[in-house]
């Protein structure tokens, strides 16, 4: 079956513009995670969705970041008024089990803010 897919694979944007990143989880996976990976660093948790429950947004770095997910389907991560420090690879992961111990990652979206 298909794995986690993300689009676009690469995005270059000008400082101050808004961007939208998309994640298609593995079909049937109830949990979905967004992580950010800045150059030379490990992954930072951003947000978690589980079914129709309220998302855990505790990792979002500022109010310029938001994410949506409808049910157990596609998720979009939106960054408003992008800044150069937002440049990173944004990774999405999904998990079959509620507590997400085995997460399957997508290839990521590389965002460059110029």
């Amino acid at each position, binding site marked *: 079956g298909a794995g*986690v897919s993300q689009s676009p694979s690469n995005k270059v944007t000008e400082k101050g513009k808004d961007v939208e990143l998309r994640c298609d989880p593995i079909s049937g996976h109830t*949990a979905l*995670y967004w*992580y950010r990976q800045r150059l*030379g*660093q*490990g*992954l*930072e*948790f951003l947000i*978690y969705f*589980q079914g129709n429950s309220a998302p*855990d947004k505790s*990792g979002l770095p500022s109010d310029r970041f938001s994410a949506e997910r409808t049910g157990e389907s596609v998720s979009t991560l939106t960054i408003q008024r992008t800044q150069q420090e937002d440049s990173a690879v944004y*990774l999405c*992961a999904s*998990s079959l*089990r*509620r*507590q*997400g*111990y*085995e*997460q*399957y*990652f*997508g*290839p*990521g979206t590389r965002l460059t803010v110029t």
Partner: protein
Amino acid sequence: AQSVTQPDIHITVSEGASLELRCNYSYGATPYLFWYVQSPGQGLQLLLKYFSGDTLVQGIKGFEAEFKRSQSSFNLRKPSVHWSDAAEYFCAVVEAGGTSYGKLTFGQGTILTVHP
């Protein structure tokens, strides 16, 4: 707060040599431990995981890891490295149960270079 430390930023080994990548964690609760590998331009692939039981766990691609609670370590090993193992390796921890929802805490990563 929990943290994961991978002391080695970059390791270089010769093909056929043995490998050990270090991982130490700081965690108050019972941790679940993972090793992921990331090849250039790729997402993360799960190599192995430890939840409970036998402290020596086997993973894919010939990798194994040993959980040592007394040392708060979960080091990754491979007896004979292949050129295709060149990649970046991440150790990750999640709190077992609780409200962590499987929110992984990652180490900084170790880049492995393999010389022919």
